[in-house]
């Protein structure tokens, strides 16, 4: 649990973050969105004290984050940034081992952790461990960057536009990987982005920032239905609303009883993907299968249309 209480950051006369309070529930993904200069990155960086607040306090699991020195605090909180920030002179394994080494873990425990994380990120430990960052593709570098952030098993992971430098295909994959990782470790993730698509895809709760203030802090569905201000509505994009609504639900939730012909859809695909498949195939209905490949029903155009309509 992260409790942000009346936090303010001023640089000279400019107030970058203005009296923000919010509570971030444990084991959730909170996405902070906003335009450039809205203060979203500064807000996040005050959680691990890369930026010191001018006023206000932040408590992590009840303890003031000023109770321990900044660098010790940061070793307990994972941190991943855009462009990965890997150390070019250290191997992949050494990069991932950075924080455990700082914490003085035993060699064997570190090696085991590095291996576990690499395989979790679908990188062969024997092949990738000894390589240097520049020998990796952009997507692989980004995964190693996140693996490094998770190496000391932090409860909290802060991510500053972690997927900003990736191409769209790899970005979608990286986002799905992140969701899987979050379910695996139950990490509390705070992620900063300006990509609304990404926010709706990942977030349990979205905080919209504008000019240093939080204008709305709500679950994605709630935000779609009741945008607090015109700014939020613009950010969401009025034309995108039905599709965003579909993208927060899974096909499994939209499945109805019955059968249909055609290429089956996976139950964990988003309803937006299901709509796309229906439109493209020219059919009114498609079968839905579970993770085990067993049919669990079908989705229909009409059913999805009802779900995409403004909730009453």
């Amino acid at each position, binding site marked *: 649990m992260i409790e942000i209480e009346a936090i303010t950051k001023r640089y000279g006369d400019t107030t970058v973050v203005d009296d923000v309070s919010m509570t971030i529930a444990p084991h959730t993904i909170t996405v902070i969105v906003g335009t450039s200069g809205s203060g979203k990155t500064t807000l996040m960086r005050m959680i*691990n004290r*890369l930026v010191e607040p001018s006023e206000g306090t932040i408590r992590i699991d009840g303890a003031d984050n000023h109770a321990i020195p900044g*660098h*010790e*605090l*940061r*070793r*307990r909180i*994972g*941190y991943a*940034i855009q*462009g*990965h*920030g*890997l*150390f*070019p*002179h*250290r*191997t992949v394994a050494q990069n991932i081992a*950075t*924080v455990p080494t*700082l914490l003085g873990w035993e060699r064997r425990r570190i090696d085991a952790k590095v291996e576990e994380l690499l395989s979790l990120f679908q990188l062969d430990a024997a092949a990738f461990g000894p390589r*240097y*960052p*520049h*020998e990796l593709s952009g997507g692989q570098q980004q995964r190693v*960057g996140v693996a*490094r*952030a998770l190496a000391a098993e932090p409860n909290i992971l*802060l991510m500053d536009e972690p997927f900003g430098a990736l191409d769209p295909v790899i970005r979608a994959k990286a986002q799905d990987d992140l969701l899987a990782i979050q379910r695996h470790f139950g990490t509390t993730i705070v992620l900063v982005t300006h990509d609304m698509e990404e926010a709706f895809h990942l977030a349990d709760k979205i905080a919209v920032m504008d000019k240093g203030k939080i204008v709305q802090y709500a679950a994605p569905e709630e935000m779609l239905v009741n945008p607090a201000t015109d700014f939020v509505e613009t950010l969401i994009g009025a034309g995108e609303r039905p599709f965003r609504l579909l993208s927060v639900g899974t096909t499994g939730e939209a499945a109805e009883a019955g059968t249909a012909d055609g290429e089956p859809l996976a139950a964990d695909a988003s309803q937006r993907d299901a709509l796309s498949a229906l439109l493209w195939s020219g059919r009114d209905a498609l079968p839905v299968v579970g993770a085990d490949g067993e049919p669990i029903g079908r989705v229909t155009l009409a059913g999805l249309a009802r779900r995409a309509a403004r909730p009453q």
Partner: protein
Amino acid sequence: MTLRIDKLGVVIAALLAYGAFVAPFANFRANRIVPGEARTILEALPSGLGAALLVFVAVSLVVIVLKTPTLLRLVLGLAATLALALLIGLSARYLTPPENTYARVAPASGFWLTSFAFVLLTADALTRLRLSPYARIALLAAVAAAAAGLLLSGAWDGLSILKEYASRADTFWLEASRHVVLALGSLAAAALFGLPIGILCHRVEALRAGVLNVLNIIQTIPSIALFGLLIAPLGWIAVHVPGASAIGIRGIGAAPAFVALFLYSLLPVVANTVVGLAGVPRDANEAARGIGMTDRQRLFGVELPLAFPVILTGIRIVLVQNIGLATIAALIGGGGFGVFVFQGIGQTAMDLVLLGAVPTVALAFAAAVVLDAATELSNSKPGRAA
């Protein structure tokens, strides 16, 4: 097979042809200070040998001008350089009348030009072969060993420069050690002070411009003027600070030379440290802070290792510069190879000048090769591709 012309080869061949067929090979003088008489290759070498050398040069010209295998060019360059080294020694013995200890035989422009052409050929071949840093150092060691072998075997004993050496053998090694101590000692001191100053300049932006400007200005003071400027303060320190004169600090001598070299060394070390640290990727620095490194851990674990190749380049500049500059120290009694250079100039004895100049050049060249190899090694660590 078509014959193709090697562009650099044409230049080398022109040098070689002029050096071998036009310019004099050796210089004969009745004693060490009278003007010399030029001797061509045919006159300077015993009959047959001179003609053989000219034929060898003619064949070499063809090999050099045409595009030939790099390895062949390397072997030719090395073999020819060694042959010339042996022949000039032979020529000295051949030209010196028996029982005459006054006559001097020195290499003349033709020898230097032909040698230079073959060395250039070797260097070009080495560049094309892209030898690994270790191989380059091994080659340097082999060349040094060959030169030492020639010196010890007495093959060069007839040459004027070694006759000068023979009458100064004791002081030569004393001045050599002084020269090395001056050049390396001032470098060590500059690294010791320059690195922290560079780090400080990197961290405290307000200092940067000021410090670098001051060091720049020092760099522009002519060395003689700097020695002069140092006489008064160092003399004052020697008199007024207890123990200062006991450790060798005085207005003239090694102390001002050391201080001047140290001051000249600071700019390259500090500037390269600042540039190197500024070149550390922002992401890496940001991540280092974000995952909980302290400032010290970040400096030693991330910033300095990444800046190291650039800092090493600065050290290389300083070392080569100091080996050359240390020659001037002799002007104020600081010792070093410069002693021979200035004595030689005073006596118009060019051989004595060479006795000071040749070891200085050799030392600077060796230092450059070793540090270039070290820089490349630190650069080629897999993590630092470009």
